[in-house]
């Protein structure tokens, strides 16, 4: 087991390894509890996309993390905002520090290094992001569709808010009884 660090120390380590690639950072604290209030800490950092892999490796070096999620936001512009969230020092009461890394990935070059070599379980997440947002993961072995069928049309990504989106595939299931009654000839 690695040494337990507090939130500042963790941030310090990240800053040290990333240097200028750390664009902005913030420690958020939340107070929990009614009778005995205590604090929880989260690190939110915005980084350069090229430093992503290094940042993740740093986290793995601090403590084997628990991957919360990987997601991305397509704001409709030229970039996809990627969000990676890890929890470290979980398994310790009040000890989990959540680290969230955000960075912009230009739509012209949607490629990221995989983290499945560090954590097998991230495969599900990466495959999901790959099919949902069209982000390629370099080194991801299993590239079969996870949720989408194998014959999913090329270039359709459900979470995209641009021309690659699925807006045209929506089906509204509710029908008004007005039409139904007309069809059945029940009302005048």
């Amino acid at each position, binding site marked *: 087991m690695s040494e337990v660090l507090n939130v500042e120390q963790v941030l310090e380590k990240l800053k040290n390894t990333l240097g200028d690639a750390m664009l902005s950072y913030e420690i958020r604290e939340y107070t929990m509890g009614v009778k005995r209030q205590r604090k929880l800490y989260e690190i939110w950092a915005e980084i350069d996309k090229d430093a992503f892999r290094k940042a993740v490796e740093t986290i793995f070096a601090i403590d084997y993390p628990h991957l919360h999620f990987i997601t991305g936001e397509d704001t409709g512009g030229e970039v996809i905002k990627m969000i990676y969230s890890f929890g470290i020092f979980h398994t310790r009461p009040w000890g989990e520090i959540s680290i969230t890394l955000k960075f912009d990935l230009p739509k012209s070059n949607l490629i990221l290094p995989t983290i499945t070599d560090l954590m097998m379980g991230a495969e599900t997440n990466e495959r999901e992001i790959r099919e949902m947002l069209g982000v390629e993961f370099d080194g991801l072995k299993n590239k079969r569709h996870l949720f989408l069928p194998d014959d999913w049309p090329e270039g359709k990504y459900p979470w995209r808010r641009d021309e690659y989106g699925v807006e045209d595939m929506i089906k509204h299931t*509710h029908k*008004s*009884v*007005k039409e*139904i*009654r*007309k069809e059945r000839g*029940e*009302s*005048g």
Partner: protein
Amino acid sequence: MPTKVMFLILKQLLEKPFTNPFPVKHAPKNVTELIEKVQKGEVQINPPVPVPEGFRGKLHYDPERCIGCRLCIMVCPADAMEWVPELKKIRHYVSRCMFCALCVDVCPGKKFPGEEKAVKALSMSEEFLLADYDKYSDNLIEEPPEAKEKGI
């Protein structure tokens, strides 16, 4: 090999079954006849497990009380309310509802003259035996009566 389960089930054998024999104990020979008899009061039907106070059953809509504020439509997660513009009232589809009662919470309702407080146009009833052959049957749609008559 006697196991604990064996003792357990032997004990259960001696106890009364836990089953609530709703509506009758076994499949009747003829349901139509049975229902006739029940209506005549010759046979009693075993009631279902009673619902508690505050049970969220089928939504009841009282168009008289509705002021057409459309708040219910705003909060309804299931799109179960339909705006009837001609009447400035709503139509509720039981077969779309998810019985969350959010609409009941937000409904302001109307105060009739002589009443102290406004009464909501929407309320949750205790009715939950809703099986039907047609999802658009009258029982599964709550609306102002004239909506159906006029086909709007």
